[in-house]
């Protein structure tokens, strides 16, 4: 009980602090001629047991995640630190986060041509296929590097980067990562091209990790793996644009890297990503293709889990935001996949046949992701497998969606969506039948007047999956959902929603949320049941266990 009281005191203190801070909205604090800015986030959760949805009692009663970033800037100089406290990490966060302390600190000096950061930093080379140190606070993921990061621009249009560091692993740092990157914008370095409509940029990167030898036994008794101590990845990339046309490509290669991700095989890794697009006012089309083959790149070969990844191979599938369309999200299979994604968007003009008085937007997306066509050569301590470049394996995921947005009157706007999702449970690591889901969504916003806005959302999902207590996937079956949201001015909102598995499934997930926003401060309190599921942001997914109870969240920037 004592700890609960303490947490409530902290929560109160944060609230008071925020009010003080927001009373000086958007005013940074002048110290020694510089500025102090920052942001604070405080999330709490009270969960209780519910055997149907599978939530369990939390021994600590109240779980809290809190963090505060403080940033000091003075001209070219800046310094920052982040305090994190996971006093009982929230459900779904790795329990290794338990604890509190300064999780991130840095000093940095930046001019237009030169920048150096010492301490924790985030960095990305190209699309991140060789290196991406990043953070996603909602996924509980932080791959920050602690070390030194330097950027130098010797000439206009040329950017060179170099870094060396160790990766964050919860409250520890591990591994040793070194990298460099170069990028050249040809329109800047070639005078004749300065004004050219064609814009061309070329880049290349090289990243290497070092790890000491360790004993990993081979499958053959009496033998162990001969492990590479240095593993390197490199890539080349280009970005070509002319008017509405755009073409981007990146190819990455990784040397032998037996690790827990690929089950200790010695095959080289590679990945190719292509994106082509055309757009003009009111019309756009984009096609992306990707092939990833054994590209899981971790700074510590023997630690599983989502931490310690050096690179990032995002999924190219559309990031759906409606509940049922994102019920079965796709996560990149860094061991191997092939994918194709197409997006098309068109605006029917006002007063046209299909546009009506206010115009109509349509948005179509389709994607298909399959495994690679592989021939197994052996297990641990062998080449692993061979793959044909253009061959495809089993279907992992496919979706097609059509979204039509139309203003019905000056006050009412309707967005109607139909989606079809094909999902292979193997991408979540277990066998099972492929699910085929149809989803229909109506989303209606009614702007009653300047101060009062109502939003309604209705969703339906018909699935050929059935609830199976052995697999215990609570997303199975047919679902309906309703949501009503009322906004009073831009400050207050109340929303009430319910998701119900009406056929072949289990669960009834209701939720009531109230939120208050003022300036950069937002407070939200919710009560209800959260479905066990997978939250994906970017290319990374996290399992969130079921919860039943009260949640609250406070964020602010100052």
């Amino acid at each position, binding site marked *: 009980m004592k700890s609960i009281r303490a947490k409530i005191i902290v929560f109160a*203190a944060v609230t008071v602090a925020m009010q003080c801070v927001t009373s000086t909205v958007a005013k940074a604090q002048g110290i020694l001629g510089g500025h102090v800015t920052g942001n604070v986030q405080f999330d709490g959760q009270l969960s209780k047991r519910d055997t149907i949805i599978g939530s369990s009692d939390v021994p600590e009663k109240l779980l809290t995640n809190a963090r505060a970033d403080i940033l000091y800037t003075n001209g070219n100089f*800046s310094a920052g630190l982040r305090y994190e*406290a996971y006093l009982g990490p929230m459900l779904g966060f790795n329990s290794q986060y338990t604890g509190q302390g300064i999780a991130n600190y840095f000093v940095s000096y930046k001019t237009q041509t030169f920048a150096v950061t010492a301490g924790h930093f985030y960095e990305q080379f190209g699309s991140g296929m060789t290196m991406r140190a990043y953070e996603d606070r909602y996924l509980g993921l932080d791959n920050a590097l602690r070390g030194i990061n330097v950027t130098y621009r010797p000439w206009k*249009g040329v950017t060179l980067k170099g870094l060396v560091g160790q990766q964050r692993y919860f409250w520890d740092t591990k591994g040793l990562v070194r990298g460099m990157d170069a990028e050249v914008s040809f329109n800047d370095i070639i005078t004749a091209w300065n004004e050219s409509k064609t814009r061309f940029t070329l880049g290349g990167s090289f990243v290497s990790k070092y790890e000491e030898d360790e004993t990993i036994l081979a499958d053959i008794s009496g033998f162990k793996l001969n492990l590479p101590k240095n593993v390197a990845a490199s890539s080349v990339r280009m*970005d070509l644009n002319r008017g509405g046309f755009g073409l981007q490509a990146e190819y990455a290669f990784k040397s032998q890297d037996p690790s827990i991700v690929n089950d200790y095989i010695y095959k080289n890794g590679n990945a190719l990503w292509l994106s082509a697009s055309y757009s003009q006012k009111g019309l756009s089309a*984009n096609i992306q293709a990707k092939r990833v083959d054994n590209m899981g790149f971790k700074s510590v070969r023997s630690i599983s889990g989502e931490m310690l990844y050096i690179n990032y191979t995002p999924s190219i599938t559309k990031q759906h935001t409606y509940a049922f369309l994102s019920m079965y999200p796709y996560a990149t299979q860094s061991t191997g996949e092939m994918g194709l994604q197409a*997006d098309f968007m068109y605006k029917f003009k006002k007063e046209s046949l299909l546009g009506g008085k206010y115009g109509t937007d349509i948005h179509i997306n389709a994607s298909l992701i399959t495994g690679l066509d592989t021939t197994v050569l052996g297990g641990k301590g062998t080449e692993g497998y061979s793959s044909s470049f253009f061959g495809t394996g089993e279907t992992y995921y496919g979706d097609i969606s059509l979204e039509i947005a139309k203003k019905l009157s000056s006050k009412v706007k309707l967005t109607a969506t139909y989606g079809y999702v094909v999902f292979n449970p193997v991408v979540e690591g277990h066998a099972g039948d492929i699910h085929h889901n149809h989803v229909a969504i109506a989303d209606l916003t009614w*702007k009653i007047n300047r101060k009062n806005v109502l939003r309604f959302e209705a969703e339906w999902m018909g699935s050929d999956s059935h609830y199976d207590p052995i697999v215990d996937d609570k997303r199975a079956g047919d679902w309906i959902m309703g949501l009503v949201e009322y906004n009073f001015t831009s400050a207050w909102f109340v929303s009430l929603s319910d998701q119900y598995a009406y056929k072949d499934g289990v669960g009834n997930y209701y939720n009531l949320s109230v939120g208050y926003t003022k300036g*950069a401060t937002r407070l939200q309190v919710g009560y209800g049941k959260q479905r066990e599921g997978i939250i994906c942001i970017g290319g990374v997914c996290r399992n969130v266990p079921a919860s039943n109870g009260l949640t609250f969240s406070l964020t602010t920037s*100052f």
Partner: protein
Amino acid sequence: MKKSILFLAAMLVFGFAMSQNAKLPENISIKTLDGKTVETSIIKNDGHPIIISFWATWCKPCNRELNAIKEVYEEWQEETGVKLVAISIDDSRSASKVKPHVDGNGWEYEVYLDQNQDFKRAMNVVNVPHTFLIDGEGNIVWQHTSYVDGSEEELFELVKKLANGEKIN
């Protein structure tokens, strides 16, 4: 626990410290839609106000906000000289969709990519949408997170005040 209370207390003290407007940072690297790296010092508007909006292609409220402003953007510009700069925080999963998305929606804003989220961190943005108002001298004078249909009108009231040389508090 004691430590964190102390820490929060320290922040409170910061809160009461002498206030002064933060400047828009000038040396953060962002990218143009055609792939060129530039510095945030490129964000300028000849002494007129600037709206900076952090958004992402997958963020529905962001799109509603930018679409709503699109309808009135021309009027706003004529009346106050304001300029909207949209900063996409899309990562490599969707960054290549930003340009088609912007064109497809017919947005006339200046748009930059903040894939590594350096600018987002420097501006202490936690969630999108997050909107800042910058005065003619480059001071950050107002910020707001989240979007509700209609709240762009409140934003415009503030822009008008700024354009008339009034103080915002």
